[in-house]
C-alpha cells in the first residue's frame, strides 16, 4: 500500500516534470493538464520542494510514530516542525468566505496533486484538513500561575459566602 502510494507519487512527480517540459511556460496552461497547488505561507518548507514532492509521505510517517508512540511533538533538534498540523497551517488555502478550505474543496493544497494523480488520501479521515478557527481567549491555559490565580479567586469567594452547599454532606 505504502509502496504503491510512493510509486504513484513518483509517477506524479515525473508527470509534473514531463508537463513542464511540454508546457514550458510554467503557467500550467499547456497541452498537458498540470496540477496547480495553491501557494503556501511562510518562507520555506521543512525540506526542498523536490524532496517534499517525492518524500512528504515518508516524513509524515516517521513523525507520526515519533509523536504517537514516543510523545515527541515539538521539532527534533536541528530540524523543523514535521507535524501534519504544521503542514496544514502553512498550506491553508482560503476559500470564497476567507476561511481555509477543507479537503472536500478542489482548491485544497493536498487535493490539487492527489486528485490529479488519482491517489486517495487517508489522513483527513481522522485529521482536520484545515486549521481550526482562532480560539477566543479563555484567560487560562491551565498552567500553574493561572490555576493558582483562579483557585485563589474561588477560595475568597468561598470564604465570603460561607459554607459551600455542595460540600454540606459526605464530609
Amino acid at each position, binding site marked *: 500500500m505504502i509502496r504503491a502510494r510512493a510509486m504513484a507519487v513518483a509517477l506524479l512527480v515525473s508527470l509534473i516534470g514531463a508537463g513542464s517540459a511540454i508546457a514550458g511556460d510554467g503557467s500550467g496552461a499547456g497541452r498537458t493538464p498540470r496540477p496547480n497547488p495553491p501557494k503556501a505561507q511562510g518562507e520555506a518548507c521543512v525540506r526542498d520542494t523536490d524532496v517534499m514532492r517525492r518524500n512528504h509521505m515518508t516524513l509524515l510517517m516517521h513523525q507520526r510514530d515519533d509523536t*504517537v508512540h514516543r510523545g515527541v511533538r515539538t521539532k527534533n533538534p536541528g530540524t523543523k516542525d514535521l507535524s501534519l498540523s504544521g503542514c496544514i497551517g502553512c498550506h491553508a488555502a482560503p476559500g470564497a468566505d476567507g476561511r481555509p478550505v*477543507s479537503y472536500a474543496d478542489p482548491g485544497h493544497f493536498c487535493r490539487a496533486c492527489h486528485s490529479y494523480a488519482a491517489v486517495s488520501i487517508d489522513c483527513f*479521515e*481522522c*485529521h*482536520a484538513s484545515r486549521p481550526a478557527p482562532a480560539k477566543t481567549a479563555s484567560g487560562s491555559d491551565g*498552567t500553574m500561575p493561572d490555576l493558582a490565580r483562579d483557585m485563589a479567586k474561588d*477560595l475568597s469567594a468561598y470564604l465570603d459566602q460561607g459554607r459551600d452547599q455542595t460540600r454540606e454532606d*459526605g*464530609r
Partner: protein
Amino acid sequence: MSDARDSRSDLAADRRALLRGAGGLLAVLLAPGVTLYALGGTEAAARAPGEAVSPKVRWGLLIDVNACPAECDACVAACRTENGWADTGHSATDPHWIRKVSVRDPASGAAREVPVMCQHCASAPCVDVCPTGASFRRADGIVLVDRHICIGCRYCIMACPYKARTLVHEPVHDQTADAPRGKGTVEGCTLCAPRIDAGRLPACVEACAAKGAAMLFGDLNDPNSAIAKAVAARAPARIRADLRLDPGVGYRGL
C-alpha cells in the same frame, strides 16, 4: 539526542526543586477535610524538545468522590471541547471519553456520581487483546490507540472492564488539531497526552479545579509530587480492584 539524555537527570532535579518551590505545589486548606490541590504546570512536566517520554514517569489521577458534586459535569464538558467529541444522536454508540457514573451504597443509601474514564491500567487488557498493536501503553503509563493501525475490530472494547472505549461510527470533520478522530477507529481517554507533552494539565483536571477541585493529576513515580504524597498518605480505592490491573486512576471516598 545525547544532549537530551544527559540533561534528563538535571531535568528531574529541576522538577523536584520546582515542586518544593512556592509555585510548584499549591495546597489550600479550606475546611477540615476539604483540601484543594494543584500540581505544578509548565516547567514541572516539560521534557527537552525531541526527547521521548520516559518510563521514570507514571502519570496518574486521584479523584475525591466526596468533593465531586452530583450535578457538576465540568470535566465531561471540558473533555468534549478539548477533544471534539459529541453525541451523535445514537445513544447506543455515542462516544464517551469520560462519563459520570451513578453509584449507590445500598447499605447506607449514600449516592455519588463518579467520573470514570480510561483507567490507564499498567496491565491493560485492551493492549493484551489488540491484534494489530494499535492499543499500546506509552512509556509514561498513558494507554492510547494508534489510530493509524487500528482496524476497528473492537476487541479492546470488549476486553476493557471499565467500558472506557468507544468506536467512532460516523464520519468526523474539522477535528481539533490535537485530537484526530475518525470513523472506524476506537478511542478513549488519552489523559490529554498532547497537553501533558506540552507541560499542561489534562482538560478535565483544569476544569475541575474551578469547580469541585476533586481531581489531582501528577506523576505517581515522583515521591515529591502531590499525587504520590496523597496516595502514600491514604491508599486510594480502585474500581474493580479484584482484577488487579494496576490502574493509574485512583478514587477516594468510593
